């Protein structure tokens, strides 16, 4: 009897293991470690939702694959008034939402009105918008409170810009929830090439090819009928799944596994510098780092080559100034700092600290191993100058509480801090982090940096419509910021995407880093 039970158990396990297999041709499976908190395009403001937002929703304009140039998406053309306050976009005709309703100018206006009314997450980018309205079926007009030169870049960004079906919103709106936030937090109805099917929280999102996609499918090589985005937190598991071919793309592979995957001919590895920037932000208003010579001494003492080689193991590039390399208006003339201990000692002596003799706090966010190790390098470098560094790790909410306070005396001397741009414009780095109006608790100038010339240049750039002049202002501002050294501009991490070689047509986007232009992709199995 016991033997029969044992055999029966084994049979069930075997049957279950064999019968569980289902063929998955024409399905693209993506493994990612990031799960969105919400799918609501008007509320979500996190990298985790980029992959679905990019293909389920469409924007008026978008970033071209592989670059930060803006190109048409739903809008075939646009024009801006001379004073830069009126923007008109002409839509392509014949666009339909996944629910079958037409996507016209009313729908576009409705989507932006929704974002403005909800006023959460990405809404801050649309603050200059006074009103948005449909002029006719295919023309939508934005009236701005002031000139907003980066408006096109803002519209190409992924957050808050996707056009959602008004029919779907109205169908699920309630008196307490007039914008159907609750329903849209778990559903998506856009115009993109793939439609939303289901989200099993913590497990996967499934998308399916939208047969009535307005661009049509006849002229593409795309043969991907279904897309499954699987949430796999553990990078080692992502690697295992990729090796077995059970996922086609693994988005979060650890550095160690990345090296191991280099030996697999059937796996393609794509690694490109991202626009993410990591800084060491100085407290410019209190303590020894209030003296620019001390800040420059620390910048000169830091071992950049060691950081790239040992901490980041080559998976990063050193920054050049405060804005991302590769962006239009990035100042390419700025020096890229290198370690110079002699200069550091000289600057410290000039500042009245020939032998150091003081202690600084270095604060970083829990979970950022790279920043911990940067702190260790800094600790070793500063020890040579007689400066003691106290390394403090804090969870994000605690760190924010510690650094985002209006009193500089309470803010640590050095804070390791990262920055993702929302849109591809230098001003998206400079204004929030270096304009004096952005001191805590308002925004992100956590080092209390202030230079009136920089403020004036950024103010001018914020409304200047002449691209050349604007670029000049921004480049001058970058040079002044470099000179004032409110931070050490450390590195841009690379983005790593591992794909089975049968996945074709993938192009890395430096701004939609988590996203895939699936319409242009296909499988060759």
């Amino acid at each position: 009897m016991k033997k029969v039970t044992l055999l029966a158990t084994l049979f069930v396990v075997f049957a279950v293991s064999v019968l569980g297999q289902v063929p998955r041709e024409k399905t693209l499976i993506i493994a990612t470690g990031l799960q969105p908190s919400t799918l609501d395009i008007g509320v979500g403001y996190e990298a985790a939702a980029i992959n679905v937002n990019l293909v389920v929703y469409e924007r008026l304009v978008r970033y071209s694959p592989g670059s930060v140039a803006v190109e048409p998406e739903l809008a075939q053309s646009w024009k801006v008034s001379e004073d830069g306050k009126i923007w008109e976009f002409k839509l392509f005709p014949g666009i339909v939402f996944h629910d079958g309703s037409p996507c016209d100018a009313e729908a576009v206006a409705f989507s932006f009105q929704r974002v403005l009314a909800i006023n959460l997450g990405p809404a801050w980018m649309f603050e200059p918008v006074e009103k948005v309205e449909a002029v006719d079926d295919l023309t939508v007009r934005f009236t701005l409170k002031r000139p907003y030169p980066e408006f096109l870049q803002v519209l190409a960004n992924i957050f808050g810009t996707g056009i959602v079906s008004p029919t779907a919103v109205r169908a699920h709106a309630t008196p307490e929830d007039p914008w159907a936030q609750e329903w849209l937090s778990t559903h998506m109805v856009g115009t993109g090439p793939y439609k939303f099917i289901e989200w099993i929280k913590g497990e996967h999102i499934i998308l399916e090819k939208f047969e009535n996609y307005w661009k049509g499918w006849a002229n593409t090589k795309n043969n991907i009928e279904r897309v499954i985005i699987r949430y796999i937190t553990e990078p080692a598991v992502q690697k295992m799944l990729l090796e077995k071919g059970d996922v086609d793309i693994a988005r979060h592979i650890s550095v160690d596994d990345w090296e191991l995957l280099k030996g697999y001919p059937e796996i393609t590895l794509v690694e490109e510098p991202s626009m993410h920037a990591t800084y060491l932000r100085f407290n410019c208003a209190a303590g020894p780092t209030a003296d620019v010579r001390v800040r420059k001494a620390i910048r000169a003492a830091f071992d950049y080559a060691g950081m790239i080689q040992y901490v980041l193991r080559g998976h990063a590039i050193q920054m050049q100034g405060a804005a991302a390399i590769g962006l239009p208006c990035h100042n390419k003339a700025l020096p890229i700092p290198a370690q110079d201990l002699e200069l550091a000692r000289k600057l410290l002596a000039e500042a009245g600290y020939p032998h150091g003799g003081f202690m600084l706090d270095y604060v970083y966010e829990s979970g950022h191993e790279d920043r911990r190790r940067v702190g260790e390098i800094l600790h070793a470098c500063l020890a040579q100058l007689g400066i003691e560094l106290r390394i403090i790790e804090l969870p994000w909410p605690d760190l924010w509480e510690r650094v985002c306070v209006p009193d500089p005396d309470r803010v640590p001397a050095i804070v390791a801090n990262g920055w993702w741009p929302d849109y591809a414009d230098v001003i998206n780095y400079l204004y929030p982090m270096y304009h004096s109006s952005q001191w805590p608790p308002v925004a992100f100038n956590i080092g209390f940096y202030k230079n009136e010339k920089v403020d004036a240049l950024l103010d001018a750039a914020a409304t200047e419509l002449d691209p050349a002049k604007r670029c000049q202002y921004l480049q001058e501002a970058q040079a002044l910021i470099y000179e004032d050294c409110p931070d050490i501009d450390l590195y841009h991490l690379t983005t790593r995407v591992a794909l089975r070689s049968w996945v074709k047509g993938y192009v890395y986007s430096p701004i939609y880093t988590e996203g895939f232009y699936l319409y242009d992709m296909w499988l060759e199995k």
Partner: protein
Amino acid sequence: MASFFIRRFGYTVITLFGLTLITFILTRVVPGDPARVAAGPQARQEQVEQIRKLYKLDEPIWVQYVTYMKNLLRGDFGKSLWSKRPVISDLAAYFIPTVELSLFASFLFLVFGIPIGIMSAVYRDTFIDHVVRLFALVGISFPVFMTGLVLQLVFYKILGWFPSGGRLDPFLIPPQRITGFYLLDSLITKNWPALLSSLHHIFLPGFTLALGSLAVISRMTRASFLEVFGQDYIFTARAKGLAERVVIFKHALKNAAIPILTVTGLQLGSLLGGVLLVEIIFSWPGLGSYAYTAVTVLDVNAIMAITLISGLVYTVINLFVDLMYGVIDPRIRYA
């Protein structure tokens, strides 16, 4: 028995009330501004204030607590600052898979752990006993994440017998929701492909989660039975010529049950701790990852709800174990 039950139930209510108070105060006094974290670093101060007002974080802490308790009694855990959805709807999505996995693991460690322990005691110092003891040692010593990764490597990557993770094959439509438990729902709706796929998916994480407890239970059962086997009434039973099966299951089992029951209660509670790691390794869409996110983003309402639910489960298990003591050993009821 009724007064024993009422007394124990009263303790449970007091414990849960204390839990709400302590957790509420802790989530409100820890450093960090939940409204700012929820709004994001780029948000304007006006947006932060809007969130603060929306979630009533601008009111005095005792007012917040009274409001929270009033809502809680209506089953409303508030809205999540992270997902912006009612916490109860997030919990409904994440808690059921965790319970399903924990119950499956409990089933495994109870169904296999106790018989293995009895077998080990009955065949003391034989080959079977040595194997069981070695197995128990390995089960206790191996950390759950290690077990998970090794099982995944062997049974997914090398042998290909089981999937790497998830709850159901994404190519299958989930069973119609009745209880939320895939195993049960697919059984009720006679959705056999979904049942097989759910069993297929739950086996490795369930076994990983159960292994440590299985080892503990089998060790405890063995020790408990060995102690009982040395008692006079067992000698008497055997001397009377009773079948060994009767000796074990009628005379020994009930007397050995108290320590086993105690350890079972503790192990059921400890599953809630281990399940977090297992869920991460096997991409199981449960409470673990939700709890982790809630803590890292200071989602106060979600943290409260998770703590209360976990506390509730723990206290209910303890209540159940206490009541079972009373059932097994009547002397305890009147103590």
